[in-house]
């Protein structure tokens, strides 16, 4: 389980790195999306992996060792929602820059080659 999870984080993050080093704005936004999956999974993994132990406590008497760590989950939930907001902002910047400069290069102008 752990090894699969680690590979998943690595692959999403690595694909993200490749994409954010590309010159086109759309590649950048996809790269950021992929990277945020990797990072969110990574933070989530800080609470270790738990199968069938959601942090839902139906009774007041609780043995904390029997439940997944709720803290990384709370953090990642926040991160997902904020990530959505920044993606939206980036998207608007992307189409705005394209309208303004006429280019979809990340620097706003086509490279001189």
């Amino acid at each position, binding site marked *: 389980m752990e*090894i699969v999870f680690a590979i998943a984080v690595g692959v999403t993050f690595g694909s993200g790195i490749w994409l954010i080093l590309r010159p086109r704005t759309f590649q950048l936004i*996809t790269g950021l999306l992929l990277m945020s999956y990797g990072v969110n999974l990574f933070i989530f993994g800080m609470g270790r992996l738990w199968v069938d132990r959601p942090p839902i*406590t139906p009774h007041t008497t609780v043995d904390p060792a029997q439940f*997944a760590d709720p803290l990384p989950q709370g953090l990642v*939930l926040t991160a997902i929602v904020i990530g959505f907001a920044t993606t939206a902002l980036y998207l608007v910047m992307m189409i705005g820059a*394209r309208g303004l400069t006429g280019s979809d290069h990340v620097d706003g102008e086509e490279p001189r080659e």
Partner: protein
Amino acid sequence: MLLASLILVPFAGSLLAALMPENARNREAWLALAIAATGLLVTGLLYPEVAAGKALREEIAWLPSHGLQLVLRMDGLAWVFTLLILLIGLLVVLYARYYMSPKDPVPRFFSFLLAFMGSMLGVVLSGNLVQLVVFWELTSLTSFLLIAYWHHRSDARRGARMAFTVTATGGLCLLAGVLVLGHIVGSYDLDEVLAAGPLIRSHELYRVALVLVALGALTKSAQFPFHFWLPHAMAAPTPVSSYLHSATMVKAGVFLLVRLWPALAGTAEWNWIIGGAGVCTLLIGAFIAIFQHDLKGLLAYSTISHLGLITVLIGIGTPLAIVAAIFHILNHATFKASLFMTTGIIDHETGTRDLRVLRGLRHQLPVTAVLAIVSSAAMAGVPLLNGFLSKEMFFAETALVGGDEHWWMSVAAVAMGMFSVAYSLRFISIFFGTRATDFPREPHEPPRWMRFPVELLVVLCLIVGIVPGVSIGPILHLAVTATLGPNTPEYDLTPWHGFNLPLLLSAIAFSGGVMLYVVLRRYFNLREREQVPVIYRFSGAQAYETSMMVLTRSAQWLLQRIGTARLQPQLLMMMLAMLAVPPLLVGMPRAWTEIPLHEPDPLFAAIWVIGCACAVAGAWMAKYHRLAALILVGGTGIVTAATFLWLSAPDLALTQLMVETVTTVLILLGLRWLPPRIEPKELHLTIPRSVWMRRSRDMLVAVAGGLGMALLTYAVLVHPAPETIADFFLLRALSEGGGSNVVNVLLVDFRSFDTLGEVTVLSIVALTVYALLRRFRPAADSASVPAQQKNAADPASRQTPAEQASGGYLLVAGIYLRMLLPFIGVIAAYFFMRGHNLPGGGFVAGLIFAVAILVQYMLAGTVWVENHIQLRPHRWLAFGLLLACSTGLGAWAFGHPFLTTYTAHVDWPLLGELHLPTAFVFDLGVFAVVVGTTMLMLVALAHQSLRARRLPGDGGSDAGLTDGRNV
């Protein structure tokens, strides 16, 4: 609170003055007058206590837990300076009322002036050195603003920049010096620092502290080699020159030196650094002053020279020299302020300040002429005027300290005396000669109250000069005893001391000065000379400009060499740093397996095979096949959501799923505005070598980064989890938070402050997106209707989206999705209600509800939806934020901290007992914000296609659309 009020009232007045209308010249002046007068009254009230030899202290707790407090301290020296600042301030305000033109924006002027008054009072009343530096920098700042008051003039801007650069740099040195002092003494409290003189002087860091403090003081008081900023500061309105640049602010430097005299003085370093700078300044300033053609320039250099004189006295450092220094500070403030005001009057009346033009003014301005001549005489040190007394003391001290060995000190003093007589004569020469009629304006005597401040100051010069013992004696004594304490010497304040050496020196200086003036005038063409002889080559201002240019150039050079405005190299550097820095810092992880691992589940592995394939394929396709890439990345998102579900995080799974949906729709809407990018179809396309290299390099970085991240993740996962605060949340979620879904309780209760911040960020982003898109103009090639929608053979291209959904090819989907709307609404409500106990909550419910609306938009188009539902996303945002904040504030009403949750237990008929925590209301706010944000962003994006189609000259099949509601 009296001391605090002295500082606070001018600042409050500054704020008030700034709010007054442009043309309220009288009201502004009255306000400033009232403030200065109140200050004077308070100062007067404090006199008995200060005169009794006490140092008044006020401490205002600021951050008591860190031992930080504002300390205000008023001893005799501070009292005298307070009096000086407020009295000259009062007169300057009165004068400025008449000086400023009705066309000048007076609120700004008086606001800055009052702010300066407050800062300057802060400097003299600070009982803590760091606090003193803060006020010190504030005076630099207000001085900058006042010099640049007429900011349409380039000389004003340049002068302001120069003054600020020099004095603020000095201020930074001073801060460093003060920190060193604090390190030596172990306290920044003025009382303790002053008492620790021997400790400071014997400490190895003494020289460092002294040089740094001296840099601060010498730059502020325009001492050589930093004197050049003061003449350029004369671009300020004359009241400012009179107040800041002669009477008060430039005195801050010498004030500081006097203030720290007990702590720092008494060493050879002190004598040489302070005294040396003073001697140079006094000679250079006085000499250059003779050759000025601008009245204010002459006074500026004279001010520099007099400040030099004071600095020399402080540098000499004997108790009697300190007495003379304080005395001269007061005298100089009196006569120089009056001279500046006279200059302002002359400028005001004749329209020029050029010494080459002005002459014979006694015919037109008889009273002003008399006043100016008397104050110039005081400046030159003529007997029976105040300048004479302190200059006598100066001569006496130089002769005494210099003795036979350092005879040059007396020579320097006499030379300075001669120069000052010469420039004073030059100054008053404008009143003599034949009556001139060729001025830009025909001069008349100024208004009664404009001249009043000058009259008062001149009378003060006379009173102090004739009966010093009665008039200035007690005040001077106050300042002297406060500084010198038990070292206070015997001194005698009388105009006549009999025939002695100082009187002889005075006589030589006086006659020499007159001769020098006559010679210069007759044989050296003083009136027309353009340059100062000999030392014009050593221009401080030129050196300043050159060094500024070198600084700017080298910064540009450095930026060109190591900086880039391009995004890709920056990101590459970031990624490389991310790869390299952590291993360098912590090294490789040590042990591997320490806890029992989970058996790999084949299904889990299988979904991640798909997820990874999607990620890699998405990365591959993102260049030419954006839609495919988007779908593939979405696939990875779904797998991520499934992983959350699998690994005991149902809330995350839900949120990820909904966010995925909304994000995909969002980007789909954006794709429309990107330029087409078609994959080249030619065979045997050769990739240039450089491109190939770049791609290999990026691939290497990407693989290394992914590998590193995977290793790190694995290393973490095989280690046992440390003790965290998770147990706290798990144990208390139900008992104290009133909910069994710990993640939700965490978000809306334990960490609700974070969540409040988060929804605020969401709202801000939504509004930013909205604002950015209001100004958005699409690029020309994506503005027209896409080719797919223009196909004449397709009947759908002649229909609006609404027609397609109501009767066209989307009829089935239309009916189905419209029927679905209430169901999705119910589901959203369901997820919201159960959020506290089961997976769900405001975020998820908000996203679900937003998707319900979104589906309608996608189906029937913007126009149809907005004709049928009034959405108003802005109101959702406002309502949500208001609800969340007021829930938090509600806790205050019951005496609890912000955002404390309260759970009500209500018995309902049929439903039984229900928990109603206030967190529920907070979550409702979150829900509203999420709905508002999502809707606002998507709707703003969706509206762009409406706009684009309304562009002129784009006829086509979209005519029906423009009939719809205007957006």
